Every structure is written in structure tokens, then in C-alpha cells.
């Protein structure tokens, strides 16, 4: 039972624990969209905003709500500079898929967990790709979106490790009271 107790006792800490998944998503969006490329623009940045959505949708869906996913998607749309709404829709649809298959995704471990996240990220990239195709009336080259998918999956393991630490120390495993 000790593991299920809330790490923070004060109201501020509890509020921080509730907001932390959303803040992690917004921070990930901000970092991913800083207009600096260490590799000269050879590869696109990963979708760091998608990682908290996936993580907390599995472990604490009460903290990562659809509205939070939409907020992170809107932030991604604002900062990435693409057509408005594309990533908002992609993130929300991914959230819907993950939330519907939550038990299946959460039961994965090891390398299969990475593959599971890859499937979820594929949903996001595919929905963004087809939304763009619908907006522009023709399909775009696949290579850039596949590169972004690969980069996002590549960042999954280290990012989830950090999220695990944040989750156990600051958020907690049990349901929020808010």
C-alpha cells in the first residue's frame, strides 16, 4: 500500500503532480520545435509531445485526458508551423486508439513495448499524412514522415525512462483526487 500513497502531501505538490503530464507534453513540444538542427536538417525532430500522451494514457489516463492531448496537439501545431490542426487531430486520434487498446499496450514489455509504441506513433504519423493529403489534394513524399516516425521511436526508450522517474517521484501511481 505504501507504493500507492501519494508522493506529495501538500496541495501544491498534488496540483503539480496532476499537471505534470500535460507540462511534460508541452515541454516536449517546445524542445522538439526549437529551430535548431544538430545534423543540419538531415533528419526531422522527433514528436516529443506524443511520448507523454502515450505514457500517461497507459499509466494514468485520468491525468492525460483527451483535452490534454488536444492541448499538446495545438501546441505542436502552433510551434511546428505546419497547417493548423493537423497534429491536434493526429494526437487525439492516437490517444483514442491507445485508450481503446490500453490493456494490450500496457501489457507489452521489452522490445515489444517499443514496437507497441511504434504502432501508436504510426497512427499519429499516418493520420497527419492523410490529413495533409486531404488538405493539399495530393499525396506527399513518404520519406520525411517515415524519418520522423523513426526518430520518434528512437527517442522512446530514453524518454520513457525519464518519464518513469518523474512518474514515480512526483506524480504517483494512484488516481488523482482532482
Amino acid at each position, binding site marked *: 500500500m505504501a507504493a500507492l500513497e501519494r508522493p506529495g502531501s501538500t496541495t501544491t505538490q498534488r496540483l503539480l503532480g496532476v499537471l505534470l503530464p500535460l507540462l511534460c507534453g508541452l515541454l516536449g513540444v517546445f524542445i522538439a520545435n526549437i529551430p*535548431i538542427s544538430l545534423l543540419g536538417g538531415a*533528419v526531422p525532430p522527433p514528436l516529443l509531445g506524443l511520448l507523454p500522451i502515450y505514457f500517461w494514457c497507459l499509466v494514468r489516463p485520468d491525468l492525460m485526458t483527451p483535452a490534454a492531448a*488536444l492541448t499538446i496537439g495545438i501546441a505542436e501545431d502552433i510551434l511546428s508551423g505546419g497547417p493548423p490542426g493537423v497534429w491536434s487531430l493526429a494526437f487525439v486520434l492516437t490517444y483514442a486508439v491507445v485508450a481503446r487498446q490500453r490493456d494490450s499496450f500496457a501489457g*507489452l514489455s521489452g522490445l515489444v513495448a517499443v514496437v507497441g509504441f511504434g504502432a501508436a506513433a504510426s497512427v499519429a504519423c499516418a493520420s497527419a499524412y492523410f490529413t495533409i493529403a486531404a488538405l493539399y489534394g495530393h499525396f506527399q513524399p513518404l520519406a520525411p514522415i517515415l524519418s520522423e516516425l523513426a526518430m520518434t521511436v528512437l527517442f522512446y526508450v530514453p524518454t520513457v525512462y525519464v518519464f518513469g522517474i518523474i512518474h514515480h517521484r512526483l506524480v504517483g501511481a494512484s488516481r488523482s483526487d482532482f
Partner: protein
Amino acid sequence: MANAWKIARKSNAQLPLVIVIALAIVLVLLGKAQSGMFDQARAWVTDWIAPGLEKVRAPVQDFGRFVGSITEVFSVYEQNLKLKEENARLRQWRNVATVLQGRVTRYQILLHAVPDPKLNAVLARVIGRVSRPFLQTMVLNAGKQDGAMPGQAVVDARGMIGRIYLTGQRTSWVILLTDLNSRIPVTISSAVGSSGNVQAMMTGDNTTMPVLDIVSRQATLHAGDQVVSSGDGGLLPAGLPIGTVVDDGSGGWRVALLADASSSQDVEILNFSQPPEALPPTVQLPAEAAGLKPQPPPPVAATPALVLAAPKPVVVARPMATNASPSPEAAESEDQ
């Protein structure tokens, strides 16, 4: 990993998922109708982080150069030979260009041609680059307070890079020619023979070489034809060098750009504003063209006498003396 995660069983989402999905779809449609919806927020964020971007620019540039040099170190010898050959060829072209420039200047003087207006330019530095699947852009450290405005062309020493589509107070976003949203009217000058210029539309598709949509189906292109901006629409100045035509292998044509947006550091923002063509005053137009009723002819004045100009004496041109000093025979006849 699943054991470590304590899975909450049921979500108490504040908004039902269906409503949020509907909101996202509305956002897409709204964004399609008003594409500049998020632009101000993006410009504000970029202005806010611009000082930080300028500080980290140098180390990031050095790191990128280091990473790039790792692969290039294996081909230094071949690249050196290629550069020497290209340098020799470019020297020849420079001589040709110098001769042609002189000839054009002489023709302009002879024809009393009005020279092209000089463009005001703002020098800016590239402080950021974004290469996303659906967006290829760069961020400059010049904004509204420097005179940068949306629509202005951005060039480097080699050619056109793109045009500004969003300006903050201190920063600007440049939409690259390779971007999905880029469409530039261009003129293609034939490099083979003298088949004239071809008007076309150059469209980016997020590849390194934009596509050419030729307006006229009867036009014939050749690989190596020069592509410059046409100036149609008055948004961009005419004649900005853009690239050369290449065959894409499937019956279409693409443009190999002269400028390399991934390596450009200092660029110029061209302040080009073509004033709208002013209509001549209605009094100078024929009455029907000016939309006026034909006026009766003015009454003939009686008092002023008709003054005819005196005919000028006819001047017969004489052949010019080839020698400035008078010949001895001519001097003798004058004396007599």
C-alpha cells in the same frame, strides 16, 4: 514494464473523446479557411527565444560542420579536383559575363533604357532551421522593426532561397522554395538555341528539387535551361536567379536550385514593392475609352492668328574628317 506501471482502470475524462475529436476536425477545417490563425503566437514565441537562438547558433553551426566533415573527409581529394575544374569553368563564364554586361550597358545607353530600380535589401542572419515533414523553413534575425515584411524575397550569394511568410518584431520565418506551400512564377531561358523564354510555375514538394508546371504545353525545355523569377504578380522582382532545369526521369521537369538553404548563414531580404500601374488621366484618353460622352469640338478662336513655324534650314550631313588636323590642300584652298 507493465508490472511497474500501475494501471488505472478507468478514465474520468472531463471531455468525452468524441467531442475532442470533433474539435480537432473543426480546428483542421478552420485552419484551412484561415491559415494565419496560429501565426501570431508562433511569431511571438520565436521573438521570445531569438536571443537564445543567436547564442547557441555558433556552437550548433560548428557541431553541424564537424558532423558533416566526418563524411566529407573521405572524399577530399575528389572534391578538390572537382572544385578546381569548376573554378576554371567559372572563370571563363566570368569573362563572358563581363563582356555581356558591357554590351548590355552600351545597349541601354543607346536605347535610353530606364534601368531597373535598385532594390533595398536588409542583411539578416539565419538563426534557426526547421525541417519537418510538412514544413521546410528557416528563421532570420530580422523582423518588422528592420523592415522585413511578408512576401519579400530572401536570397543569398548564389540565388533565391525563399520568401518571408511570417514576421515578428525581431524575427522572420522564411518559406523555402522546396516547401510544400511554395509556388513561384518563373521564367525559363533556353540554354539551347534561341527558342525564347518559357513561363512556368515552380512548386515545392518537400524534396530538394521543386517541380516545374509549364504553363504552355507547346514549350520545349532542355536540361540546363536557366530558371529565374518572372516577377509576375508583382510580389517578387523579376530576374532573380533560382536554378537550372533538370529532367526528373519520368517525363517531368524539376529545378536544381542554385542556393543551398541548409548551409546559408547570411542572407538578404529584398524590399521589392512594385507600385501599381497608374492609369493615365482621363483627359489623355479617347473619350470612349475613358467612359465619357464625346465632347463637341471646341469653338475656333477668332483673334489669335495662326502662326506657322518657319521651316528650318536643311542641314546636310557631311562625312566626318578622319583626321583632326586639316590637310595641307584644304589649307591652301582656304587661303586662295
